[in-house]
């Protein structure tokens, strides 16, 4: 079952969705993230949606059930000048070394999603999940141009 919430604190908008770890949930996660990303990230929105989707797909394809409990937890924060996407309980510390982009000139599937994420995002980090020892959250950041970032508050400037 999918659950979602939205909060605003000062200039920071926050959206959170918890979805089942299934391929059919991917479209739901994209549809959930798209309105905020399109509003605040403008031309970068499609790429950010791709990075989010690839990361969620990575969980479905590769992560052990005991880490994420069969769910995908996504939090998106839009602050002036920066978008942060956090995917909870993304992997274990021992998994990080295996998350590698592929050699692009090779015409073969595999590792392409990781390449997309690294290319699209300005920062990709694996951070210990405070509530779940032994699990790492995936935290991805994208800096936004100032003009785009001004839309974080819904373009309310006159």
């Amino acid at each position, binding site marked *: 079952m999918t659950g979602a919430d939205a909060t605003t604190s000062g200039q920071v908008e926050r959206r959170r969705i918890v979805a089942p770890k299934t*391929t*059919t949930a*991917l*479209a739901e996660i*994209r*549809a959930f993230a798209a309105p905020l990303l399109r509003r605040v990230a403008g031309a970068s929105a*499609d*790429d950010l*949606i*791709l990075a989010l*989707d*690839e990361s969620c*797909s990575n969980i*479905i*394809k590769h992560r052990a059930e005991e880490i994420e409990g069969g769910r995908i937890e996504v939090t998106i924060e839009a602050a002036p000048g920066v978008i942060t996407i956090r995917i909870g309980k993304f992997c274990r510390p021992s998994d990080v070394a295996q998350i590698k982009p592929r050699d*692009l*000139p090779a*015409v*073969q*599937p*595999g590792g*392409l*999603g990781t*390449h*997309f994420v690294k*290319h*699209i995002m300005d920062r990709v980090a694996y951070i210990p999940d405070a509530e779940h020892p032994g699990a790492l959250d995936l935290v991805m950041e994208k800096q936004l141009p100032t003009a785009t970032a001004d839309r974080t508050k819904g373009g309310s400037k006159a």
Partner: protein
Amino acid sequence: MTAEIQRREEGDRLIIHVEGEVDLDVAPRLWREIEKALRKSSNVGVELCDVVYIDSSGVAALVQGLKEARHRHARFALLEPSQRVRAVLELAQLDQVFNIETEPSRGPTDGEIV
């Protein structure tokens, strides 16, 4: 939004028309359709003008198709990829690898409006 995949013949070419979003949920079905088409025809095109989203698994299905076509000495082309598909192929640095046809395909029944 889900994806629809349909097949049609145009001359000696078998065309797979894809519409909607191609993600991890849809890509295996796309690959199965490509594989089936390559078994039936030595000239296969994947029409992507109505694809609004594609991820690495969708690209992987196309790459698999290209490899299978090479293995079978068959022709394999991407037809009219949408702007989004083109952007993702460029991101993957695969836009030069595929045979991409940008002209709209004209089947025998095209243009018949009743």
